[in-house]
């Protein structure tokens, strides 16, 4: 098996009295895509946001247990949240470009990190847009507003923005659920390219999408990790009946 990039160890998360994640332990492998599936409210997004401490900002939120990235527990006393979020980028369901130019959107992370070297920024922007498979479509209009782009292009711009600070892990929360099939296909193809360089964790409601793009699949329900295995196994011969009932739509 390949190198473990993220090791989640007996992790719990509470929203006040609500126990949202229950004793989750899972290994996430480097340069692999982990797909997270499960019904609404099962803890998928909470889990995803726990991987870069995005849940810290929620009042009443409390985490227990460990999330170890490259050997360091990100919930440890010495960890630096800014550094964690640079290393672990995130892309959301709804594309959320800033009301700025395409160029400035991608440059944003570099600028707030204090980088001023114009040539460096320009080179990094080109690289990020190329990695996000958007360069060919925007290279002649980098200084146009980001809102001029289509929905699918905006989402790829957000991916480019996440890539610009050179993360190692990318978290995606339903990145294609608001896109049409063509734009969805582009994002899915892009994920296959991105995993060569990054480790990707993606939450999706679309079972076929999870089946298509992920190497491993985790099925969550009621805050618990029910089953975690190689994707082809989950979708042909899951070991738990409850997983099978969910993926075949026998729920309810």
């Amino acid at each position, binding site marked *: 098996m390949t190198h473990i990039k993220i090791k989640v160890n007996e992790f719990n998360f509470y929203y006040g009295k609500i126990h949202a994640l229950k004793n989750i332990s899972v290994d996430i492998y480097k340069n692999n895509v982990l797909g997270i599936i499960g019904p609404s409210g099962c803890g998928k997004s909470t889990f995803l946001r726990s991987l870069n401490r995005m849940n810290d900002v929620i009042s009443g939120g409390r985490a227990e247990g460990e999330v170890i990235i490259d050997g360091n527990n990100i919930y440890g006393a010495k960890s630096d949240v800014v550094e964690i979020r640079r290393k672990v980028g995130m892309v959301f369901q709804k594309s959320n470009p800033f009301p700025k130019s395409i160029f400035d959107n991608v440059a944003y992370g570099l600028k707030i990190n204090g980088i001023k070297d114009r040539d460096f920024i320009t080179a990094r922007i080109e690289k990020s847009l190329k990695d996000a498979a958007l360069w060919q479509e925007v290279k002649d209009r980098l200084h146009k507003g980001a809102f001029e782009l289509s929905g699918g292009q905006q989402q790829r711009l957000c991916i480019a923005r996440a890539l610009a600070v050179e993360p190692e892990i990318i978290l995606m929360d339903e990145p294609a659920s608001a896109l049409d099939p063509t734009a969805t296909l582009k994002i899915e193809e892009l994920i296959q390219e991105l995993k060569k360089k990054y480790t990707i964790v993606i939450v999706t409601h679309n079972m076929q999408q999870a089946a298509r793009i992920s190497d491993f699949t985790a099925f969550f329900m009621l805050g618990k990790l029910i089953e975690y295995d190689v994707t082809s196994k989950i979708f042909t*011969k899951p070991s738990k009946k409850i997983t*099978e009932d969910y*993926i075949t739509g*026998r729920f309810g």
Partner: protein
Amino acid sequence: MERHFDEELKKMNTDILKMAALAEEAIYKSIEALKNRDKKMARSVIEDDRKIDELELVVEETAIDLLALRQPMARDLRFVTTGMKINAELERIADLAVNIAQRVVELSDKPLLKPLIDIPKLTAVARKTVKDVIDAFVKCDEKLAKEVILSDKEADRLRNLIQEELINDYLSKDTNAASRAVLLLLIARHLERICDHATNIAESVIYMIQAKVVKHHPEKLDNSKFTKYTK
């Protein structure tokens, strides 16, 4: 929760059972025609094969539609893919019954070579394996499917017995008997092939139930930890 999809799966299941019934009948009638030297019955087996061919196309089309439109997963996926394989195997089994019927037509104008003893025995084995394997499919009975796989040895034994007798007692001794002996030999061969196809179905049924591939791996005919399939 009952899904609309379940209705479509049930229809595919029903069509497969119809095919199985027709294939079983074809085997029965072809050997009855041999016993009774009934050319008319043999011809009816050959003609009725059209019905099985048509059903094969229906089942195949249903399966392709289900794969394209429903994108089945897990047990549903295993049912549809297994159904497609069973469909093809049943069609081959019916073709072999047709082959037997063709040999019967060729034999019916010639005098009887010998009383039939082992061929009816082999026929009984073939009919039982086809019946059992379809029962195993219907009831998701993994134990019965395994028995079908194991019973293939008996079919091989009977075929060898028939072959030796026909070669030693007729083919090597009596040139006048040669053509009839060859036709009987072919019938034995067709019956044994029917058992082979039933074995293939049994392997698919075990895959459907247990998600375990036992094809080419007989050592895996033991227990498995996967979720069992029930209808």
